[in-house]
């Protein structure tokens, strides 16, 4: 067990610590590490895609491999990179922001992260076992049913595993925020990042089950020979599209709302001004989430649902621009009249505004059905969602890294390197994706392995690929910055950004119990309030008393391993008895760990304080 006074430990001790941890901060770091690994993998796939498209009729990769690349790029970036990194940040930051000592269900939290990591690894194993999934990240039936080999089976089981983990996180965060806020931390005093964590978790709770169902149906069709999507046997493939997008559209907001939360922390901090229109920001978040469930069919305008459905979903889609617009203007007005300090974190936030606004604009344009008949499934759509996801989510993640790095790792990321990384990434991003709007309108559909010579698409594609190289350089500089900071980074002063919210009141490195005494929150921007009206210190809400903490456990890890083994069995279950045996072995391990967990009494332990030195007692 680590304590605030931990000395250097052996590598194996650290690994064992992380394998068994139930601490929200370490789980958060595991999420971010896993997410970073898959982000690099997804980036490599993107690079291969763009190299293939650098010139007409290129043969850098084959047609089949290209489809595997686009499928894995999309799936990896959404499910195994962007979402886990955000969940990692929520894990680390949210309890600190609301004054909690951990999340509500630490054991479940650890299980979630291992399910995500094994889900992601499982899916990537498919590269070495005869081919990755190749039906696109949307995995439309009947193409996905027809796809030969086991690729799509890997897609189904990999996402089912990690999806279960995500669902657990969602439930966990909701309960944490509802039940574990510090005294005085009313809902309307919660920092925006915690708010967006709550709303995102609600989205996860309602959106993921639709996807779980879709994946089960797909699993039955592919592995148990049912016919939910098989037209020849009376199935219907459009059902997959509905289920996928009922999940898939809220998923976009699951990604972007936490990023909104991050920017809502960064703008006030570096403008030294409270968030403009806090109440409106909270309600806009809810409105976006609510409307996000009402618009899934705008991904299906060309399916032939008819003009009534198309018209309703078009108006619904455009309506989302209203709350999003409120947010953009409130951020601008937060800076208005402020004292703006521009550092790397703020640069990403400032880069986000024009980039995301373009993504939002094209979103409204795509919502107009008749125009969408031209945009749909072309590079225009590719440009649009990369403006939203890179310009919004990735900028948000990078901003959050620079902003919270001192809190998480007790080092400050190098500013010079940070700025270099930002500018190369920012220019590379716009170079890559801006021109793609026009490529789409000039007649280039998405998911094209080659484009033909003499169709006026050469220049645009070349420019786009060059942009990708710049983005790659940006990411490499950021990685170098991390390594550089690890070895030579500056140790920050307590509260290096003159922060406003509770997480900046805890000492760094953050003690494993977070708060020695639960804080008393007296208003919005609790720390800032104390700085302005008090002595700059958060008042305690309780006397120093023993702190109840959960025990570490290897069971979440073993459970996840069991489910992963069973997943392998399902993937190969039509190939012979070996598959079925593997299912039983895997499930025996998973269910066995569950039984052990259920039957063994584990009441955690108490941290006793003896003259400021925390001591572990009992076990």
């Amino acid at each position, binding site marked *: 067990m680590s304590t605030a006074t931990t000395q250097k430990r052996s590598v194996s001790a650290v690994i064992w610590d992380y394998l068994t941890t139930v601490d929200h901060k370490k789980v958060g770091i595991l999420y971010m590490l896993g997410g970073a690994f898959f982000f690099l993998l997804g980036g490599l796939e993107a690079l291969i895609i763009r190299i293939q498209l650098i010139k007409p009729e290129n043969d850098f990769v084959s047609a089949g491999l290209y489809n595997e690349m686009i499928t894995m790029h999309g799936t990896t970036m959404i499910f195994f990179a962007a979402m886990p990194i955000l969940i990692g940040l929520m894990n680390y930051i949210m309890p600190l922001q609301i004054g909690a000592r951990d999340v509500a269900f630490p054991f479940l939290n650890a299980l979630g992260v291992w399910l995500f990591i094994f889900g992601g690894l499982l899916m990537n194993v498919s590269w070495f076992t005869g081919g990755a999934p190749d039906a696109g990240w949307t995995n*439309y039936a*009947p193409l996905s049913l027809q796809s030969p080999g086991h690729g799509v089976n890997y897609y189904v089981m990999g996402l089912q595993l990690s999806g279960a983990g995500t669902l657990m996180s969602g439930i966990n965060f909701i309960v944490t925020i509802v039940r574990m806020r510090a005294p005085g931390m009313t809902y309307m005093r919660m920092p925006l990042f915690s708010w967006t964590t709550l709303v995102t978790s609600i989205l996860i709770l309602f959106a993921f089950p639709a996807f779980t169902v879709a994946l089960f149906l797909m699993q039955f069709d592919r592995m148990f020979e049912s016919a939910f999507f098989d037209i020849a046997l009376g199935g219907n493939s459009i059902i997959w599209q509905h289920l996928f997008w009922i999940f898939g559209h809220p998923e976009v907001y699951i990604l972007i709302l936490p990023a909104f939360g991050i920017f809502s922390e960064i703008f006030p901090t570096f403008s*030294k*001004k409270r968030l403009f229109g806090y109440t409106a920001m909270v309600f806009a978040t809810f409105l976006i989430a609510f409307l996000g469930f009402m618009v899934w069919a705008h991904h299906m305008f060309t399916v032939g649902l008819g003009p009534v459905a198309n018209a309703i979903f078009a108006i619904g889609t455009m309506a989302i621009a209203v709350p999003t617009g*409120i947010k953009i203007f409130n951020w601008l*007005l937060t800076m208005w*009249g402020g004292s703006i300090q521009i550092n790397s974190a703020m640069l990403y936030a400032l880069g986000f505004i024009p980039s995301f*606004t373009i993504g939002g604009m094209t979103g409204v344009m795509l919502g107009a059905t008749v125009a969408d*008949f031209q945009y749909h499934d072309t590079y225009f759509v590719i440009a649009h969602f990369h403006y939203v996801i890179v310009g919004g989510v990735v900028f948000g993640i990078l901003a959050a890294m620079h902003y919270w790095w001192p809190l998480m790792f007790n080092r400050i990321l190098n500013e010079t390197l940070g700025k270099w990384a930002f500018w190369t990434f920012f220019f590379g991003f716009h170079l890559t994706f801006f021109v793609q709007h026009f490529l789409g309108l000039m007649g280039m559909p998405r998911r094209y392995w080659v484009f033909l010579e003499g169709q006026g698409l050469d220049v645009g594609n070349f420019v786009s690929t060059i942009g990708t190289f710049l983005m790659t350089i940006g990411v490499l500089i950021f990685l170098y910055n991390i390594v550089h900071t690890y070895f030579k980074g500056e140790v920050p002063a307590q509260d290096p950004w003159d922060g406003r919210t509770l997480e900046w009141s805890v000492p760094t490195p953050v003690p494993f119990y977070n708060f020695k005494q639960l804080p008393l929150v007296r208003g919005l921007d609790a720390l800032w309030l104390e700085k302005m009206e008090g002595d700059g210190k958060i008042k305690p809400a309780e006397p120093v008393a023993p702190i109840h903490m959960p025990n570490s456990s290897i069971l979440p890890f073993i459970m996840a391993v069991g489910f992963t083994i069973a997943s392998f069995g399902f993937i190969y279950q039509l190939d012979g008895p070996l598959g079925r045996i593997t299912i039983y072995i895997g499930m025996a391990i998973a269910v066995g760990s569950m039984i052990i967990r259920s039957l063994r009494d584990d009441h955690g332990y108490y941290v006793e304080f003896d003259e400021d030195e925390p001591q572990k007692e009992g076990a």
Partner: protein
Amino acid sequence: MKSWMGKMKAIMLFGFLSLLLAGCGKENLTALDPKGYGAEKSLDIILLTTGIMVGVFLVVIIIYTIVLARFRRKKGDNHIPEQVEGSKKLETIWTVIPIILVLIMGIPTVVYTFDLADTSEASSTLNINVTGHQYWWNFEYEDHNVVTSQDLYIPVGEKVYVNMLSSDVIHSFWVPTITGKMDVNPENVNTMYIEAYEEGVYWGKCAELCGPSHSLMDFKVIVVSPEEFEQWITDMQNVDPEEVPTDAVAQEGQELFQSNCMSCHAIGDASSAGPNLTNFGNRVHFVGYLEPTKENLVEWIMDPESLKPGNKMTGMYEVTEEEAEKIAEYLMQLKSTDVTPESAGGLID
């Protein structure tokens, strides 16, 4: 509404075009220079929404620039700005104005959506059954007993209804210059109308991922005058599928074709598992994208997999290169009609 739309359109078209220094793309492929009803309606909405959105963007950027110019922290400046809570007035403004903008964009969108989905006249005009296959298109003129594939002939200035169904996975029918796309589903027929304003040969694309050769599933729409179209229909109806070519090589080719290829391909008015080859010699391209030369055809017959990965033809027959050349010679001579892509002005290169 018409007149202000017209003005707006002109202004925006100008703005849009000046943005696009490199031009609008290839004139028979781009969606930015429409030559058909659907594409024109789409561009109207594209320009309207783009215009409004660019306006919003400019407002954002102006505020953004002012903020960055005026409120950056100077060295040594440690003042604490006033902590403004918000402003009811401002927040109301930027809630109400976007709602109005959404209505301005929404109303024409809804009107056009219903307009383009109107199939009430489908029974009284030309109907074409379109079938999407991995990776080619079948076109059946049901009322006329004519079947062709890959090159879709339609008359200029007439509403033509396409009834689309897929034989395998989902495809999507897209001719950017003439009309927006619609999915070709395996379970239900999707109907839409197309109307081309100008004669010409236009690129059609599959826009829904359908397998490895998705990007090679191109087709052409050949828009000819109504008289030429009548002529084409008549010529196609009068084709004798058994007609023996005059030269000996082609005759041998025909025999080889009949013994090796006819289980999938057809000549005449039948739809078949593979493309109907009645007017194969007139095709704009072979295999959807190759120059129509004999060398390309022989290469295709000998090794289809490398030219269209994942196609259904590979391994269905065995012919020697010599035999392939004879078959190619026969197929090149299948020019059953004088109405060809050249009648529409040919493919613009």
